[in-house]
């Protein structure tokens, strides 16, 4: 028999940054809005309103391309102070219902409402009340997924957007899983999905019948997590104080970098930044990862895992530079560089789950 039925809600705010901007500036309402940097400065879209999405404007897209797609796009500089304030207000609403709130970012969180302070026995009415209160108290809308575990709740919240509420009852889990492409999962981006397709896996449920060795060779450490998720099994609890899983930083440059010394200096600086972060958090990391995006937008990542965890800045920088030598840095122009760490000491179960550094795709 399985464990008791848990009642998990995943709440994902709708176009959060753009919605805050439209809320606070009535002149933006009904207009295509993108929050991010200016196109001339190689800005990237951090968030776009639904009016902008109609034109194909998406997060992480270069702003210059967004403007080409939507010439009337209103570009707004991000104001994280206001986003954090709105996020805090929303978290307060969540915590009035349950202490088991796990924020994933400013605009999404998990809640375990199996036992809740509102006295509701089911999660669906809780999700409905949360949405209503968010609307009344913050004038922001969200989409929610209700399911017996985090994996299903997260996918459900994206099923009907904006302002949706999708419920996956235990009896509907299998039908839901049958619909999912394998890249619906965290950690499975285009590259991993391509590897899986190569061994005949296009849908998540096809993982169940896959040869274990073939699967392991295709996706490495992700194999076990994939197999569990393909059965709809995700026992992870909602952790109100979720431990850090990774830290990374990246930068898009106004002009392409070609000078190898300059590129090495940048990567070294980023690696030392992560060492500072590790020191502040009193953490040690085993894995260093770098990301390089060339001028033609092809992107590569390189990782190195050491047996012993560290936060020594020189060691981390040296390993990042060693990884850089395995790229075309200095031979091809580069528009973006990133460096990060993960595999923190005592953290052996992170692979394949959210929060893990996801540079690959």
């Amino acid at each position, binding site marked *: 028999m399985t464990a008791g039925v848990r009642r998990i809600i995943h709440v994902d705010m709708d176009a959060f940054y753009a919605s805050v901007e439209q809320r606070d500036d009535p002149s933006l309402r009904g207009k295509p809005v993108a929050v991010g940097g200016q196109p001339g400065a190689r800005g990237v879209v951090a968030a776009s309103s639904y009016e902008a999405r109609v034109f194909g404007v998406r997060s992480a897209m270069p702003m210059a391309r967004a403007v080409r797609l939507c010439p009337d796009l209103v570009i707004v500089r991000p104001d994280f102070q206001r986003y954090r304030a709105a996020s805090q207000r929303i978290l307060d609403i969540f915590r009035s219902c349950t202490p088991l709130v796990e924020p994933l970012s400013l605009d999404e969180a998990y809640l375990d409402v199996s036992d809740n302070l509102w006295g509701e026995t089911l999660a*669906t*009415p809780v999700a409905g009340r949360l949405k209503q209160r968010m609307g009344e108290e913050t004038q922001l809308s969200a989409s929610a997924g209700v399911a017996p575990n985090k994996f299903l709740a997260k996918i459900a919240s994206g099923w009907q957007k904006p302002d949706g509420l*999708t419920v996956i*009852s*235990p009896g509907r889990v*299998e039908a839901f899983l049958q619909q999912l492409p394998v890249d619906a999962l965290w950690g499975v981006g285009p590259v991993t999905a391509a590897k899986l397709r190569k061994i005949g896996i296009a849908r998540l449920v096809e993982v169940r019948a896959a040869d274990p060795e073939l699967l392991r060779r295709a996706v490495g450490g992700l194999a076990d997590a994939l197999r569990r998720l393909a059965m709809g099994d995700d026992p992870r609890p909602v952790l109100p104080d979720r431990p850090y899983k990774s830290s990374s930083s990246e930068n898009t440059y106004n002009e392409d970098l070609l000078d190898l010394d300059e590129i090495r200096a940048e990567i070294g600086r980023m690696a030392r930044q992560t060492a500072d972060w590790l020191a502040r958090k009193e953490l040690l990391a085993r894995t260093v990862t770098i990301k390089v995006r060339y001028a033609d937008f092809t992107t590569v990542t390189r990782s190195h895992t050491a047996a012993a965890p560290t936060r020594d800045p020189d060691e981390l920088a040296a390993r990042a530079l060693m990884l850089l030598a395995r790229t075309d840095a200095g031979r091809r122009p580069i528009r973006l560089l990133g460096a990060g760490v993960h595999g923190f000491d005592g953290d052996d179960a992170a692979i394949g789950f959210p929060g893990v550094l996801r540079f690959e795709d």
Partner: protein
Amino acid sequence: MSNLLLDLSFGVKRSDGYVSAIWRASTTRLGDFHLSTSSIAGIEKYSFNKSGMCSSAHSGADGAPGALRDRAGFRWRRAATPPRGSGRAARVAWIAFPTDYLSRPTQEDDGDVLWIAAAPACGATYVEFAYAAEPEQGIRGVLDVMQDRTLVRCAELPGGETLVIFCYHADWENKDLRVPGHGAVADVLFSADDPLASGRPLRHRFGPMPKDQEAVLLLEMGGAAITN
């Protein structure tokens, strides 16, 4: 002397009196388990034989429907019962009864039916049937850990197996469903709002074709015939 070790009539009932169809769960001295319900379309029956082979059948009041040569619908093999001491059971069937699709009762309660309390609105009551190799006490221990599951009934079967019936409440997304009659018969509307104030007199069951090693999953909803 009855040939049945267990003979249970059960259904799901809301506090305002709205009910599911009445189901019957029975086990024979040979170790077979049968689950059935009746409707205006006849009797719907699921049999789980001691051998592990299972079958579904639909029959009219006078036997097999005329259009069917064999009254059996599907055949499949159920999952094996986990070994004693594993603390696990093999689920063979589960039925979901969404609360907002229960029906206004059409007959007097004769007192022989075990009515399971329905989940609150926007919920569903699940009734599950599983085979365990544990004795009843062990099963109660497992269910105690799974706080929200309630043991409905246990029946010890020949060969050391126990049939366990338990229930719990879970979330449900209410969505209207209209099943077209294609002009031959009236469409049937399944609606939580019941716009015709019909009381949803037609109880229907939906579910995928059972497969080997998998449990039968049924969704029972009440609907009403509509003519336009």
